[in-house]
């Protein structure tokens, strides 16, 4: 498969792809079909460039293959082992690799064996990774069960290689491990561009990366994702190229200081078809173009609730993309980027947000997009607009999954419409955009302060925003009305596949069938904005749902050694007081040759069977006695010589007291 979705190498603003080397083409196989790529591509960027845009089907609906969700992959030869699983967006494209997507297939795997010619034909025509996304076994293909390497110790671990994480790593003394999910450091700062008189992000990132490269005490792990945090231990999955071959490993890392510089995720606007192929977030679209020169289709519509969407529209337009229009869910937004777009002749419309994205009649992966009026009290939709690509931007949500996994608290912040970290955790700090900072300088400063060992109270970090008169603040992430029929409205872009509820029902089950896996923080925030989760509960719900990992039989068993030998007259606590203050422990002999089962009740009549009128209980076999049982009975029964019956499964059994046991004398 060629690469139909690449921008020209000389596209403006670096949209030709800074990470790829077009002079070094390569080819690998994915699900049997050849895919062409360049050195520097990830498997995901290469697949998207090649037009493989669908992850699979979810209850009959195609779901986009993108940075929010892509099925795990493995080298075909190792596909059966969890240790070999890799993430598409973190796996470098390597020439000659033969990769397959893991997880349940849309077609039976047996087809590959029974009719290989047909399988090749189907693969050749496929634009999909062909996973069944509505199958609970989807998760089974991941590295959650991979065997971790030995524990690595450091003085500090920084998770996230954006400007806050890089600053934190540089400010830390001792052995530092810096973990970055992407293949290069830098985070999302480039997406936002230069704000005010701040250092331009490109220069800042280059400066920090250069210092890190020159600092021997900092170990950088790229293509590495921390996926579990417990106490001061992290589990990290990393994809590497060793001797030209792809490999994956799970590491356990520990440090007394852990800095979470995990950034902020872009929320998914909620509308029917919001996870269809060719619907992309603004940050993802920026990175694809800026890193890999990937842009799906020739035309695009940009729907945004914030000013940075306009910046992306400008960059894309300059790079040769036909930006059909920019819609804004806010009314009359003010921004220098709005002015620049107007000056560039881009069509702008405010007070509109996506109502639906459906497959266009002409096919070729194009979309038909409908917008709705977001002005309060007004209703109505636009005509359907065909486009190659809908970039649907959302507001920001600090990435707090690890923080919550580690036992951190969170609360919904209505000012920003996000869940923010609350309180503290020993040895764990949240910095940068994950802590809610928005300006680059504030992110850098918070990173620097996170590991300050001066012992002094850190200075408050200033995070000034441009006055709302000049730069309208971000609006909330748009949510469209529910629509019957095709086109699922997902709350977020991850593995949970949580759906927008049709009606808010109080009796919805705790996990609805559509909410198979843990709810992401984005799911929870969207549910809050829909009114289906109370604001006061949002933090607790996110804490409860932000778990990961698997449960497996670890072989744990309770200690079953018998306690120290008790005296023959001892009785367990639950029999105290049952048969008077001073019951008698005796040996009973049954009328016939049988064993009396411990726990059976003893009655003064064969007609009785109500436990409330029992006069004793069989305790068990006395040592050295073949037939008979130790029992505790009411003392009056012994004194009066009353006939006794033990009731077991066969009915009442007459028994006689053969011996009264005495408590041993105290030593």
């Amino acid at each position: 498969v060629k690469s139909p979705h690449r921008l020209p190498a000389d596209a403006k603003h670096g949209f030709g792809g800074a990470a790829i080397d077009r002079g070094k083409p390569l080819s690998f196989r994915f699900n049997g079909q050849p895919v062409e790529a360049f050195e520097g591509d990830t498997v995901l960027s290469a697949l998207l460039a090649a037009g493989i845009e669908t992850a699979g089907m979810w209850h009959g609906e195609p779901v986009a293959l993108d940075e929010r969700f892509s099925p795990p992959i493995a080298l075909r030869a190792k596909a059966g082992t969890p240790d070999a699983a890799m993430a598409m967006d973190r796996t470098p494209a390597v020439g000659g690799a033969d990769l397959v997507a893991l997880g349940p297939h849309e077609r039976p795997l047996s087809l590959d064996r029974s009719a290989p010619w047909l399988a090749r034909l189907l693969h050749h025509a496929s634009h999909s990774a062909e996973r069944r996304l509505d199958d609970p076994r989807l998760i089974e293909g991941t590295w959650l069960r991979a065997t971790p390497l030995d524990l690595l110790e450091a003085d500090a671990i920084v998770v996230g290689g954006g400007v806050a994480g890089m600053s934190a790593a540089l400010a830390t003394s001792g052995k530092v491990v810096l973990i970055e999910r992407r293949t290069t450091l830098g985070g999302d700062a480039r997406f936002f561009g230069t704000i005010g008189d701040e250092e331009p992000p490109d220069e800042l990132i280059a400066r920090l990366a250069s210092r890190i490269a020159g600092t021997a005490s900092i170990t950088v792990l790229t293509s590495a994702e921390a996926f579990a945090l417990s106490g001061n231990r992290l589990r990290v999955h990393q994809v590497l190229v060793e001797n030209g071959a792809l490999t994956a490993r799970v590491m356990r890392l520990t440090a007394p200081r852990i800095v979470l510089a995990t950034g902020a995720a872009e929320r998914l606007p909620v509308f029917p078809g919001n996870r269809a192929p060719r619907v992309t977030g603004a940050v993802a679209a920026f990175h694809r173009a800026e890193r890999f020169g990937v842009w799906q289709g020739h035309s695009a519509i940009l729907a945004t609730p914030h000013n940075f969407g306009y910046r992306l529209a400008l960059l894309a337009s300059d790079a040769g993309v036909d930006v059909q229009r920019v819609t804004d869910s806010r009314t009359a937004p003010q921004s220098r980027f709005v002015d620049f777009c107007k000056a560039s002749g881009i069509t702008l419309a405010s007070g509109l947000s996506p109502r639906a994205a459906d497959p266009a009649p002409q096919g070729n992966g194009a979309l038909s997009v409908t917008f709705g009026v977001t002005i309060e009290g007004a209703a109505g939709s636009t005509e359907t607009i065909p486009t190659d690509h809908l970039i649907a931007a959302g507001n920001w949500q600090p990435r707090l999954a690890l923080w919550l996994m580690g036992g951190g608290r969170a609360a919904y912040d209505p000012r920003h419409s996000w869940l923010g970290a609350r309180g503290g955790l020993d040895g764990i700090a949240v910095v940068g955009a994950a802590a809610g900072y928005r300006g680059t300088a504030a992110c850098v400063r918070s990173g620097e302060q996170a590991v300050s060992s001066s012992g002094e109270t850190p200075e408050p970090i200033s995070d000034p925003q441009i006055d709302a008169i000049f730069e309208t603040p971000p609006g909330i992430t748009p949510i469209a009305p529910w629509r019957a029929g095709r086109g699922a409205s997902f709350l977020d872009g991850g593995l949970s596949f949580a759906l927008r509820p049709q009606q808010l029902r109080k009796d919805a089950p705790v996990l609805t069938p559509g909410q198979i896996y843990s709810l992401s923080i984005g799911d929870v925030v969207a549910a809050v904005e829909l009114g289906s989760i109370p604001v006061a509960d949002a933090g607790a719900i996110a804490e409860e749902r932000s778990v990961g990992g698997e449960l497996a039989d670890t072989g744990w068993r309770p200690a079953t050694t018998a306690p120290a030998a008790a005296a023959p007259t001892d009785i367990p606590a639950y029999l105290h007081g049952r048969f008077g203050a001073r019951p008698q422990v005796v040996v009973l002999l049954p009328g016939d040759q049988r064993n009396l089962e411990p726990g059976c009740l003893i009655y003064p009549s064969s007609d009785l069977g109500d436990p409330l009128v029992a006069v004793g209980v069989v305790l068990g076999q006395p040592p050295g006695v073949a037939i008979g049982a130790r029992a505790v009975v009411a003392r009056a029964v012994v004194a009066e010589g009353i006939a006794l019956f033990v009731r077991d499964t066969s009915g009442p059994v007459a028994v006689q007291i053969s011996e009264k046991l005495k408590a041993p004398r105290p030593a």
Partner: protein
Amino acid sequence: VSDPHYDLAICGGTPFACLLAGLLTSVHHRRVCIVGDRWSPYRMPHGLDLSVMPSARPETWAMLKRGSAETLKLLGGIGRHLFERVDPLFVAEAPATTDYLGHMRWLALGTGFSAEKAVDRAITAEGTICRIRDVAILAGGKAEPALEAWLEDLGVRHIPGAAEIAPRREGGFTLQHDGETIGATQVVLADDEAILARLAASERHRLLSAAPMIALATAPATKALASSCVSWLDRGVIVHQRGGKGQVNAFATGEADAALPRIGASLPGAGPLHRAAEARFIRIGTADGAPLIGRMGKQHFTAIAGLGESAAFLAPIIARYLAGVPGEDEARYLEARDVTRAKTRASVADTPLAPEPIS
């Protein structure tokens, strides 16, 4: 206009608290308000509501028999499908627990429950299993909203859990909520959260214990568990798979690090299960495993603790006791478990632990 006044303020948000408030209103004609946070469909449940619980006291089995029959009749009148039927397995592995379970089975059988010894090597090869058939379990997700709606129909006022409660000099209590003062003659702490929130550790009765717990839900399992409901007595773990297949809910004592391996080991044959949700919280229990009821703390709140998974099914009996009209055996049962009878607690202790010598 005088402040509103209630005979009882029931603090709690569990089905037991709701049933108690509703019964005191509808059957015993008390003026009742309920103080607590409303049920949220997205929050993790902190336990199961089963009509039986482990006990080696015959009087407890008698109460369960009567209480569950009344509760099920009541639930049938409140709504449809508010409870389901399961055949829970109780598993003992340690020798002392095996003896306890053996006795419990004979008590259950003698009280009229369908209890039997079960053998399932997939669950335990060395331990013993007691299966009790036809046990009711509240349908989580359906029962809670139905009970809240029932209380609304009965006119039971709901007051948010954040309301402040203080004793009045002349007796009784005042509840402050949203600038309003509400009076109550008696305040009942009807669940763990209410006890934890309203009684400082120093004010709790010495027999009350606060222990960490976790509740966990998995993604749907591809296989059915060996039994849909299993209580592992020596592991402190209860697992429940609703509908016989699919998502598993598990509850375990202890901190997460210790509890998770025990839960994982208590799902034999299920294969690896993805953890979908988890809640960590504090469970109030009693040191001797027996229920504890009565006034405690300097504010003299009435606290009810130690009813285990069966609290909801004992609600009719507790309601009669609070209304002052218990049956003779009910009064005897609950008075023996009153906080004022702490010195004679040995006669109600309900735990397989620590045999005590007698003369």
